[in-house]
């Protein structure tokens, strides 16, 4: 087994990976940008190396520098997390060529599956159905528009070189097509350094359902059931759950086999995720394969009891899978809420600033994978995800009740977050019933935002009283040590009253 692993990432996923490494007795090496000198992953690590300025292109995407650090630190393996270099074949190759183990699939599998066009071509040779669409990235906008018209609007424009909703656009009419392609290409270029985009058919009431797979170097490939990921906004997942309320055992079996076939089609090794779209008739189509650990992997961990990062590391060290398909037993239900530093009441605008107070939920079946602490500054440089709240319970209803409880308990003061938005989703009757699809947010946007904007008279009075109290800076107690005493001033009050 490895003695030291470098984690080529930051934020919650860096901590997530480090936790498992430490449990396996493996030392962890962090890399950090100038903006992250006191970030949680630096404090958590055994070793930490500065790799460049704040912009990720000059730090977390600077793989020559990271490789240099890997060599200098004596790391025997590199874990890329998700995003950044996790699906970069050049990095994977150079790491391997330096005699260091890349904890991920072979570069060839990343290449096939990381490029959605190549992935489609590969999948067309298997029994696994694929979504109708272009097989080549858009080269000529006029030709592409004709293809889009043939498939029929609405169509999706998607980045060829990455995932996670970046560089993705839905187009409802031919008139918007060119503009959308431009935006998608720019965003894709900025996010992945690859501006190629392609077109895909948009399905009826589709569900976004993905299967977790594990494959070792000894020819064993298994799947760990599905995650339902249909709650999305801006093509970014918001809430995921396992099992899916839409999938029955028969479909689960078929799709699980398709996921394994997909992994085998590219000689996959490691942990990966096969994403499917499932329409309202329960037809499923291969969408893409993510050749890395997925953000929402914890819901699978919670229902299977399997530590996916530990499996990744064991596979990378050459060990065979410790479990076979027949021994995968799931128990209960898990729900993940992604907590973003975004203002849901202002079109999910990113929110930056200091976290002045932090209360992370805890207790039975409550897990938070994050990388925040009280007093830390949230900067505009990186992904706005602060962390993921994962709640497990014996059944779906209990897991949703637990999620609501935990979200109610979650307090992040000083910046705007999506905590309340997640609460609004979870208490929405359609989500509660489990009859939602990927159009959930579009369909119920107004209801969700009305829910967010609604308050009782009592809450409104509490808000107003607090504002009045705050403006008057009355200090009724000497109970607290860190509050500043200010004298009450009617002048200040009047002034503030005017502005309020």
């Amino acid at each position: 087994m490895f003695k030291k692993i470098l984690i080529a990432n930051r934020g919650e996923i860096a901590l997530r990976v480090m936790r498992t490494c430490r449990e396996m007795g493996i030392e962890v090496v962090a890399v950090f940008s100038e903006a992250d000198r006191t970030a949680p992953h630096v404090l958590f690590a055994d070793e930490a190396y500065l790799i460049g300025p704040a912009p990720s292109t000059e730090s977390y995407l600077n793989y020559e520098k990271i490789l240099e650090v890997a060599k200098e630190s004596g790391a025997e393996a590199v874990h890329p997390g998700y995003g950044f270099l996790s699906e970069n074949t050049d990095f994977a190759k150079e790491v391997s060529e330096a005699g260091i183990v890349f904890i991920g699939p072979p570069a060839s599998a990343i290449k096939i599956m990381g490029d959605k066009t190549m992935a489609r071509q590969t999948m067309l040779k298997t029994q696994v159905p694929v979504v109708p669409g272009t097989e080549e990235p858009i080269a000529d906008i006029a030709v592409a528009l004709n293809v889009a018209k043939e498939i029929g609007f609405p169509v999706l424009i998607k980045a060829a070189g990455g995932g996670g909703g970046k560089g993705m656009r839905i187009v409802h009419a031919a008139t918007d097509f060119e503009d959308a392609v431009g935006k998608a290409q720019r965003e894709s270029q900025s996010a992945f350094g690859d501006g190629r985009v392609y077109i895909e058919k948009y399905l009826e009431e589709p569900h976004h359902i993905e299967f977790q797979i594990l494959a070792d170097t000894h020819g064993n490939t298994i799947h760990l059931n599905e995650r339902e990921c249909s709650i999305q906004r801006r093509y970014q997942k918001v809430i995921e759950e396992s099992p899916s309320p839409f999938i029955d055992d028969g479909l689960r079996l078929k799709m699980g086999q398709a996921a394994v076939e997909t992994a085998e089609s590219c000689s996959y090794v490691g942990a990966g995720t096969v994403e499917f779209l499932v329409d309202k008739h329960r037809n499923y189509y291969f969408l893409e394969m993510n050749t890395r650990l997925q953000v929402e992997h914890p819901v699978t961990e919670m229902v299977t009891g399997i530590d996916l990062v530990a499996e990744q590391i064991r596979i990378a060290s050459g060990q065979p899978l410790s479990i076979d398909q027949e021994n995968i037993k799931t128990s209960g239900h898990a729900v993940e809420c992604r907590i973003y530093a975004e203002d849901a009441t202002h079109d999910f605008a990113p929110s930056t600033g200091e976290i002045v107070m932090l209360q992370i939920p805890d207790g039975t079946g409550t897990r938070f994978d994050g990388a925040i602490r009280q007093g830390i500054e949230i900067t505009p440089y990186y992904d706005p995800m602060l962390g993921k709240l994962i709640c497990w319970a014996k059944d779906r209803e209990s897991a949703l009740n637990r999620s609501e409880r935990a979200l109610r308990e979650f307090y992040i003061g000083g910046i705007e977050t999506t905590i309340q938005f997640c609460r609004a989703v979870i208490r929405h009757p359609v989500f509660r019933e489990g009859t939602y699809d990927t159009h959930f947010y579009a369909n119920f946007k107004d209801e969700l935002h009305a829910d967010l904007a609604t308050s009782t008279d009592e809450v409104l009075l509490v808000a107003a009283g607090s504002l009045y109290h705050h403006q008057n800076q009355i200090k009724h107690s000497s109970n607290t040590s860190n509050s500043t005493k200010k004298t009450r001033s009617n002048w200040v009050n009047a002034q503030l009253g005017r502005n309020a």
Partner: protein
Amino acid sequence: MKYEINTSQRSLEVDFNFESDGLIINVDGKTLHFQAIQIHSGVYSVLVNNRSFVVGICPNEANRVNVNGTPINLELLDAVHLHLRELGWDSMQETKVGLISAQIPGLVTKIFHVPGDEVKEGEPLLLIEAMKMENEIKSPVSGVVQKISVNEGQTVEKGTNIIEIV
């Protein structure tokens, strides 16, 4: 002191009075005993008739209060202000709605207009990239672009004035 509480949905008239053991709120003939203790800068533990709330005062927005995690946008108008409004003078009209500042720090990746352009309310003005996402800044009013204070490729701090529409 008499106050009016306004939200986008409704309005409440209240009377606030500090007494020895806290704030007394009179509303609709009911009396509420309000006690707030600061637990962190701008964060209070509030008990109102024994009901418990954690309340955060948003540092940058005077009209935004967070109650048990939920942001509430409200306007708290005192007697002076109410009287001025009766006289036909409304301070809310003072704010320059056409002066647009960066709500987020980030990189200006695209500007869609030049000074002199006519824009409609809701029309995109520019793109700011922050936290790896492109954010479209839309015009809050219809009018003519007066001044653009930033360039494409420029990094802006939160609060920077970026464009003025008259």
